[in-house]
């Protein structure tokens, strides 16, 4: 796709017949160059920014957004949107906190303290269930994704508040004699000096890339996001793909929730509020099209790093959080603007409202 957009640009502006390749390269690699620019500017502004330890700290913040964003990417590739991931992230932390406090079975008069891996598995399963609800609403009952996941977002947040009565679980470390220690491992430990959260992000990134590029499921996902009717008639199980995508997004959100509550050593019912928007922003900055069918993991990871490194940088140089909001917003708008430039040639000149028509010769 790249070369035809390039040629079209070239034919439109014969002036750039040679220099344009650089412009095209900058446009295509915009998330990457934005990241370089951010690092350069903040390294210049603050002596603390450019250091391995700071990068690792920032990366462990990024990991949360990145994991959410990779789940979101799958949904967006499918042509949907998942607004419930922030709530799912919160609920996942709450469930973990709840289980860490011990589950009292009144009938038997015992209190069970599940070990950490059980807690992790149950939280992820919960994320999958939330995703399943989204997926079934959207695929089977044809509720628009925006509305379905908006509703689920409220419900899930409400459940988190109900479970805790609005309070926060502060004791997540477990006790050695109960055999449920180790929850902090996710947030604090390092392997080869790299935070576990970052490693999880890398792992999910690798798996995600493999799934998208090298499996039938990945191809199905791109196809049904690009043109659902055509995909269905080609034998793609579009409904199953759609449900799977929301489940995977839910699982990613649950994993992010576990890492976040472990990093914070506490689980609050309002954790992750509005994170879904950050995740969407990362996906968009990464070059994915909200109409579906276009995007990849690499871009999304870059998008998450752009957002994370920018906001951490602003904190480090001491800019007010109000300005941070403004800057982040600006970056998002700029990213969408550039997406529009990149995909412009796909819009047909004749008026056309159908989203399936994006791949036409202009």
């Amino acid at each position, binding site marked *: *796709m790249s070369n035809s957009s390039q040629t079209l640009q070239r034919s439109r502006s014969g002036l750039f017949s040679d220099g344009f390749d650089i412009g095209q390269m900058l446009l295509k690699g915009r998330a990457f160059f934005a990241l370089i620019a951010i690092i350069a500017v903040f390294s210049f502004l603050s002596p603390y920014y450019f250091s391995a330890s700071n990068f690792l700290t920032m990366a462990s913040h990024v990991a949360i957004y990145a994991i959410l964003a990779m789940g979101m990417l799958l949904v967006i590739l499918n042509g949907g949107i998942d607004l419930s991931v922030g709530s799912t992230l919160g609920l996942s932390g709450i469930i973990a906190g709840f289980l860490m406090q011990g589950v009292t079975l009144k009938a038997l008069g015992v209190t069970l303290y599940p070990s950490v891996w059980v807690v992790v598995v149950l939280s992820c399963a919960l994320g999958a269930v939330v995703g399943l609800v989204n997926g079934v609403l959207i695929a089977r009952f044809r509720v628009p994704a925006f509305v379905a996941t908006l509703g689920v977002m409220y419900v899930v947040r409400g459940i988190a508040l109900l479970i805790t009565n609005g309070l926060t679980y502060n004791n997540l470390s477990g006790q050695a004699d109960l055999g449920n220690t180790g929850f902090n491992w996710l947030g604090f430990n390092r392997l080869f000096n790299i935070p576990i959260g970052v490693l999880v992000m890398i792992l999910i990134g690798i798996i995600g890339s493999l799934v998208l590029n090298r499996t*039938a499921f990945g191809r199905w996902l791109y196809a049904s996001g690009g043109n659902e009717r055509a995909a*269905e008639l080609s034998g793609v199980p579009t409904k199953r793909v759609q449900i799977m995508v929301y489940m995977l997004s839910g699982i990613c959100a649950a994993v992010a929730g576990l890492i976040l509550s472990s990093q914070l050593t506490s689980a609050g019912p309002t954790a992750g509020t509005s994170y879904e928007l950050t995740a969407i922003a990362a996906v968009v900055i990464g070059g994915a099209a909200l109409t579906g*069918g276009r995007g990849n993991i690499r871009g999304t990871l870059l998008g998450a790093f752009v957002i994370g490194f920018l906001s951490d940088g602003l904190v480090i140089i001491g800019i007010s959080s109000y300005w941070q909001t403004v800057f982040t917003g600006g970056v998002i708008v700029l990213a969408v603007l550039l997406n529009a430039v990149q995909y412009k040639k796909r819009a047909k000149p004749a008026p056309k409202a159908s989203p399936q028509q994006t791949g*036409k010769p202009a």
Partner: protein
Amino acid sequence: MDQLPASYLAPDIVLSARNVVKSYGNTHALKGVNFDIHRGKVTTLFGENGAGKSTLMKILSGVISPTSGAITLDGKPIHFANSTDARDHGISIIHQELSLAPNLSVRDNIFMGREIMTPTGVNFAEEARQAQSLMEELEEEIDPLTPVEELRLGQQQIVEIARALSVDSRILIMDEPTSALSASEVEVLFKVIRDLTGRGVSIVYISHHLEEALQITDYAVVLRDGNITATADAKDIDLEWIVRNMVGENFDLGSPPTGYDFGEVALSIRDVSVAGALAGTFVVDHLSLDVRAGEIVCIYGLMGAGRTELLECIAGRVPKIGGQIMLEGHEVSRLTIAQRIAEGLALVPEDRQRDGLVQTMSVGENLSLASITNFVRGLFLSTGLERNLIQQSIKAVTVKTSGGDAPIGSLSGGNQQKVVIGKMLATNPRVIILDEPSRGIDVGAKAEVFKLLAERAKTGLAVVYSTSEVGECLSIAHRIIVMSRGKIAAEFSADATKEEIMAASGEAVVA
């Protein structure tokens, strides 16, 4: 439009293009083309798929700009900034691919971007009135308030034509306007075209229905690989001339393959109905049909005869009412589309943009989509196997492309159609159903595709295809089914005549 300014009555050429070149990277779609549009006449552009016809028309109508070359309108050099600019100069175009907004009504589509305004807003009543009269002119019973997505493909094409007619243009470019129209609708369109040329409007016409085009045209121009290779007065030429200049040799559409026996019944439809838009009506009405392995069956019928609905019902796209659909002796009605494909039942849909192609993917990814599970080794896709299949398919259905990685949108319309056919053939079906497979493909490619189907039939593939062109019924089909109002109206063997077939479909036989 009735009174053309005297100033340009003088020369016969209203618009001319000189040395037009259009390149997409290393693809040279046009290599220095000279083309004239004759005032008040029909100029037809013939050429193979990918010859550059649409590209040239898009340049003349301001949709794209040429890499180099000059255009003169009424003897004055001109440059169109965009299609609106060209429209303001009196040039409008009917695109090969429909460019309608499916969610909007017929009326809104016709007046999109040119709404009739009053001081208080859009004058919907006037728009509806004009839309209605356009529909009457085209002899089509379509309510202007119907959303376009509820119309059949042929009717959508009519709306597209109506939109171009609603602009009073001096030059009207029609890029395959009839690819989804029935013979009688084409007759109506031709009447409209004669009326327009009578009023001094110049027409450029493109079609792969060569005989049909020959009826209407005054001048013929042949484009081959981006060059004009022949021009002639329509009086001096015949079909053979066109084909010879287009592809260099003569093609016939083949004859039914012989020399083997049909196998068991591969596809058996028993008493199947499909509900119509109104409660209690049927678009497919208690229809039964058997097709044996190795047999090629053609379904002919007018628009609205229920062909598409029948074929989509067999493939699992639309639900059936009652009856049975059996594939090699077992019931498939409960299976999903994917399961039917896995069982060996494949459909090539009618509307390639909406149902056939994933526009965001490459040529290769489109070709392998339906058979993708065949390339899974362990967990992952084998790219080598996939690439082999893509190469083979591109060769088999003769897709003109720079390679499997090219975006599907860079292909000419006919080549996109070939990709859809190749994709379904790659699933190795036992029964293949093709809904208007020849839509938009050139004579050579049509012959290739039919030959391919005939060859596969010899090895036991059951083929069912539908067509609106009688000539195509009498090519490779062993048996011709004529559908009318959801029922089988008549059945013919391969030695039927065109007249018999058309009469059975309830169509006025055209001379």
